[in-house]
């Protein structure tokens, strides 16, 4: 059985930079030009100062594992388990966390505070930001 397709986010004017930035290797977050804070999930305004002067900003794509779980339940037919679901805190974007998968290593090798970097997985024009351990 082929592995199932990842659920596909429905693109709109606000979330498109995040979900398609990987085409250029960019992890885009919504950033405020007035106060410098990030708003994630993205909105058409800054959630810190309510400025509408927000735009996609590419962050480094590195970070640390904030918390995680090793998932053993196949939530869709053909889904290979186990795999790691993690929450990554991103370098350069204080207060922003991404739920993601940690890939390219055995699940037992994942731990709190591990340093990770983004790797994009493309599927029908969506670039899913997954993360792998650094070094």
């Amino acid at each position, binding site marked *: 059985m082929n592995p199932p*397709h*990842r*659920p*596909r*986010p*429905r693109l*709109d004017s606000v*979330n498109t930079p995040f979900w398609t930035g990987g085409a250029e290797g960019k992890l885009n977050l919504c950033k405020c030009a007035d106060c410098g804070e990030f708003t*994630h*999930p993205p909105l058409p305004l800054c959630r810190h100062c309510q400025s509408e002067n927000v735009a996609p900003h590419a962050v480094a794509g590195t970070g640390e594992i*904030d*918390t*995680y*779980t*090793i*998932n*053993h*339940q196949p*939530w*869709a037919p053909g*889904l290979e388990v*186990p*795999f790691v*679901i*993690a*929450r990554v805190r991103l370098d350069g974007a204080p*207060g*922003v*966390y*991404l*739920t*993601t*998968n940690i890939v390219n290593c055995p699940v037992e090798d994942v731990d*709190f505070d591990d340093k990770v970097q983004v790797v994009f997985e493309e599927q029908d024009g*969506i670039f*899913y930001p*997954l993360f792998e351990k650094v070094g």
Partner: protein
Amino acid sequence: MARNEAYITGVGQSEVGVRLPRHPLLLTIDAVNEALADAGLTLDQIDGVCTYPGKVPSFLGFSPVGSDEVIEALGIRSKWHNGAMEQPAQLSAVGNAAQAVKEGLCRHVICFRTVYEAGAMANPREYPMSRPDTVSGPSQWTSPFWAISAACWTAQYAMRHMHKYGMTREQLAQIALNASRNAMKNPRARAITREELTLDKYMSSRMISTPFCLYDCDRFTDASTVVIVSAGDALDEVKVEPVRIAAMSGSVDRYSWDQVEWPAAYETGHDLWTRTDYTAKDVDTVQFYDGFAFLPITWLEGLGFCEKGEGGRFIEGGTRIASDGELPLNTFGGQLGAGRLHGFGFAHEAVTQLRGKGGERQIPGDPKVAVATSGGGPMAAALLLARD
């Protein structure tokens, strides 16, 4: 009895099962009838209906019955009704009814939560499962990474607690073991718990999402649970000792499971005690939302029954939270032992215990104060209930 207060005057519940053939509207009516008989009220005295989250046509198993259908089916002449998901959590529906009767909008409100998640899966023609390949809204930030279930979201809070405070799986297991032990004394839990869980069986069961194994997650259930909320100046119409809604609280900071460090139970728990003269020391029993086993631990800590981070050690061995312990927890079996009633089971049981109607599972002494909670992750709601 204070006129400007709200009271719970009746509780009721349908048969609780898995893949019940009975129509969910009929399950709802069964629970209503039991609650009416319990309160000594008749339908013509009911003038309000409230539910959580209201009928969800795109996900009928989750919520198959709306408040307007109950009004229609029972011929209620309603002066106020409500059913909404955009509020802190499941038991906020009871809080809304309390506010409505205090405001004089109505006198006796049927509050219900009907679930038909097992029955719906067995009957996809009548209850089509929408499992869209396309996601939007909050789920777009989790589902694409197969974090589809709240089990995976809640598991990450539990993993953090273990990492930061040293909670062990053996400690966590006490939630499920306690639930199973109590469910064995609850006749309505028999479809969910048939034999008492042992630590060995728990430790060797299959993993869902670490640290949660099969027994740390509630299971789809078909049932309806009803709580009747009455105005303080309408108590002469009821035939039982009413239980006062002494305080309530609810909170949401971020509407995101993954942008908050800890569940909202901490803030909601703190707030509850700012609205009453009672303290945690006065509480005789707690009924805490346990859709996943870690959640009661957040309520124990959030409500100050122990320090933050001490929840694992607080429940170690299980004696403290047992039905004859110093703080009996989920005496009906919780959702882990008695089924995913989705929040309302905790209010139902708190009232049952405060009235001394728990039968074989009744806690000792003369309980006067209880806390019932609901929610998980970024959403939380708590009720302080008192017989005073």
